[in-house]
């Protein structure tokens, strides 16, 4: 692979080996892993042929962590140590989980960074760690099935996930030892799974009603490019809410009290869910609920009655649909087709209402439970570099505006929602006191005017500002959102060109050192193993850098570099090659940095050259729409 080389089709430099890649749908209720094998993307089953892994983790006092079906089976007998629906807690604060906590029987203890921990028999665990347990099981499944180590994965998130929720998901991947190539929005993944990039043009909607989240995306397709125009949703609305409505109805009918015990509540939820699923294919469902103390309640729920119960919930999903259409600047009539995602879209009334709203027949050919993982696998295969000639490209957006807190608790929008990512915005700040050397910034996400109505993402502490009179310093703060939708903030004092150091305090997340600690704790291995892992990581990066550099130099080194520049690069490369053979990972790292420094002007020149080539390579009339 060449340094930013835009190779012409059929001219890709070296034949490169197939890399194992997978797509992971880390769901509220179930999780899946899929991979492209012999050109076909498919979900991978466990040894017993089951594709869905229940997103349930059980912690035991003296025993291993149990994930999946066995954990789900123990949920009734051991509800406090069996964590389900952990996705709802990702990136959430202690206050947030109180709102959700009503139906979650777990014991929460406040952790550091404002993140709640779940108290279990095996100690306190964070939602990130619980999710990492699920990911580890999927990773193992894929590596055993595919017969090798995964080089990278794509993990999906609801399009409407905010920065904290995305970051938590990525952290979980890192903690599970995965190389997360990209966080991909679930609806975009579904569009990819349907192969809509092939030949299809026009606007489509993706209606995604998952277990715990709802979102809708409006996409424009054009020659293999998926351009997300707008996305909207509700992260606290999902199929589980239907179960709850049914459960409430049963409680009413059965005369159950609201303070029923954990065990009864678990059973009730299971029975309610079964009734909902039953009603997708039957006009009525018979319900039997065995209660603690030996009594049993029996009753029947008709589909009409069920539809009445869930109708208000469906209407709540249409608000975001209207919002997304409006943000995309189009009318429902322009939508060509609607892709249905999420188990809850099996409910007939959901399909019916969505079809009515968009006046388009919903697409339901691919199993709505698997469609997201399949799309993620296709994207992972491309990102891993296995399909160099593939034309598909996904252009996604940031779902919620980013802002900073200003005087009086008001927010000032820095980056508008539905901006295509990656996106950046620079803002200048100044000091208000003489000799001031530090300032703090509070970054929030959301659409509301008041800071307290938005989600607090992080507080940034800017330090090392050169002391000057009030108002003289000009601190340029750059807010960069990357292709995963994650925010990164940098600051520089303009008048003296000093980089201010930034300390990030995520409001509901983990900072880097906490992740490092967890990584350390999660590895039973000794320090020597850890160093071995780091050495291997640096060696892989060194190979990557050297390979890229050599093929770039072969292509245009003579053209773009003078002798002195060339010598400096060769010298740095030679040192890196020497270090690469050694066993000091720090030295390799330093040598990589030296190569990057020596070649940075060169890379820049190639970059500009290549951009020019992309533009110049086409004659004007080639671009004209046919």
């Amino acid at each position, binding site marked *: 692979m060449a340094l930013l080389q835009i190779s012409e089709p059929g001219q890709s430099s070296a034949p490169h080996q197939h890399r194992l890649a997978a797509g992971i749908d880390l769901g509220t209720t179930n999780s899946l892993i899929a991979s492209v094998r012999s050109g076909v993307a498919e979900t991978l089953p466990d040894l017993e042929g089951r594709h869905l892994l229940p997103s349930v983790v059980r912690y035991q006092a003296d025993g291993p962590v149990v994930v999946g079906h066995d954990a789900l089976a123990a949920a009734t007998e051991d509800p406090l140590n069996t964590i389900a629906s952990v996705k709802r807690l990702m990136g959430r604060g202690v206050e947030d989980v109180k709102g959700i906590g009503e139906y979650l029987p777990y014991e929460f203890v406040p952790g550091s960074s404002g993140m709640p921990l779940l108290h279990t028999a095996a100690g306190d665990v964070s939602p990130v760690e619980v999710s990492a347990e699920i990911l580890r099981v999927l990773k193992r499944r894929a590596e055993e099935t595919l017969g090798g180590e995964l080089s990278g994965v794509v993990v999906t998130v609801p399009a409407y996930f905010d920065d904290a929720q995305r970051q938590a998901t990525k952290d979980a991947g890192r903690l599970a030892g995965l190389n997360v190539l990209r966080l991909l929005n679930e609806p975009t993944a579904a569009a990819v799974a349907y192969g809509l990039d092939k030949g299809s043009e026009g606007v489509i909607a993706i209606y995604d009603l998952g277990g715990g989240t709802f979102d809708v995306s409006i996409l424009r397709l054009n020659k293999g490019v998926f351009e997300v125009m707008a996305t909207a949703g509700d992260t606290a609305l999902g199929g589980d809410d239907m179960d709850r409505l049914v459960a409430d109805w049963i409680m009413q009918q059965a005369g159950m009290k609201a303070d029923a015990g954990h065990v009864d509540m678990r059973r009730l939820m299971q029975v309610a869910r079964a009734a909902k699923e039953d009603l997708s294919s039957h006009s009525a469902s018979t319900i039997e609920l065995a209660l603690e103390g030996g009594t049993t309640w029996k009753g029947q729920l008709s589909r009409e009655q069920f539809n009445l119960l869930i109708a208000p919930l469906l*209407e709540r999903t249409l608000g975001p649909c*209207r919002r997304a259409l409006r943000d995309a600047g189009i009318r429902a009539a322009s939508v060509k087709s609607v892709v249905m995602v999420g188990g809850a879209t099996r409910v007939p009334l959901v399909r019916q209402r969505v079809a009515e709203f968009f006046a388009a027949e919903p697409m339901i050919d691919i199993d709505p439970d698997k469609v997201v993982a399949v799309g993620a696998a296709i994207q992972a295969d491309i990102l891993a570099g296995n399909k160099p000639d593939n034309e598909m*490209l996904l252009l996604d957006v940031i779902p919620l505006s980013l802002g900073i807190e200003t005087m009086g608790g008001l927010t000032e929008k820095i980056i508008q929602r539905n901006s295509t990512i990656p996106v950046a915005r620079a803002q200048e700040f100044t000091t208000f006191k003489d000799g001031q050397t530090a300032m703090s910034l509070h970054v929030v996400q959301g659409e509301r005017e008041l800071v307290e109505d938005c989600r607090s993402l992080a507080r940034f502490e800017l330090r090392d500002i050169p002391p000057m009179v009030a108002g003289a310093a000009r601190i340029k703060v750059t807010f960069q959102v990357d292709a995963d939708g994650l925010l990164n903030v940098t600051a520089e004092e303009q008048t003296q060109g000093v980089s201010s150091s930034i300390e990030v305090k995520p409001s509901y997340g983990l900072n880097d050192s906490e992740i490092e600690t967890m990584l350390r704790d999660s590895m039973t291995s000794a320090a020597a193993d850890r160093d071995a892992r780091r050495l291997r990581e640096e060696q892989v990066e060194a190979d990557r850098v050297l390979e*890229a550099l050599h093929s770039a130099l072969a292509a245009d080194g003579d053209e773009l570099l003078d002798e002195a520049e060339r010598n400096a690069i060769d010298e740095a490369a030679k040192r890196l090659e020497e270090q690469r053979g050694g066993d000091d990972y720090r030295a390799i790292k330093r040598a990589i940095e030296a190569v990057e420094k020596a070649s940075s002007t060169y890379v*820049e020149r190639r970059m500009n050259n290549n*951009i020019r080539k992309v533009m110049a390579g086409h004659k004007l009339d080639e671009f004209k729409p046919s």
Partner: protein
Amino acid sequence: MAADHSTTHFERFGLAKSFDVDLDLLDERYRASQRAMHPDRFANATDQERRISMQQATLINEGYQILKDPLKRGRYLLQLAGRSFDDEHHTNSDINFLMEQMELREALDEVRNVADAFAELGVIIERIADDIARLASGLQQQFSAGDADSLDLAADSLTKMQFYRKLQEEAMELELELEDELAG
């Protein structure tokens, strides 16, 4: 650091510096540039390449947003001509414009009291769109003339367009509210 900020957004997409932009051509070139530079193309590349690709893709997105929107494009052209566009400095003294603003605003406030609110709102939204289109065609002439007086007029048109945009936003927001209320 490696991102080239001296390139104008027009150059970035191989377009002539003009208010008159062929939007289909811009779309095509936007997609071609992102195909070449998007971070997804460098998911397995070195850290340095990934960083540069992100910077480039960010600039391509920024340029696309600016060039495809007449208001942002106009402001950008003024900026390239060495004029700073400052909302505060262009307070408007055009009486007709101010009157129409007030009229439209009143009409918007009254919409809820009208029998067929949606139809009334539709009329208002269309009127605003017409006003914006008229300003845009004026801008085309002003920028192609390019002299100091024309650029003053362009700055004035852009201020007006900004007002209409804000009204348009409010009107659309109101439409959404009415739809949500109608749905219950």
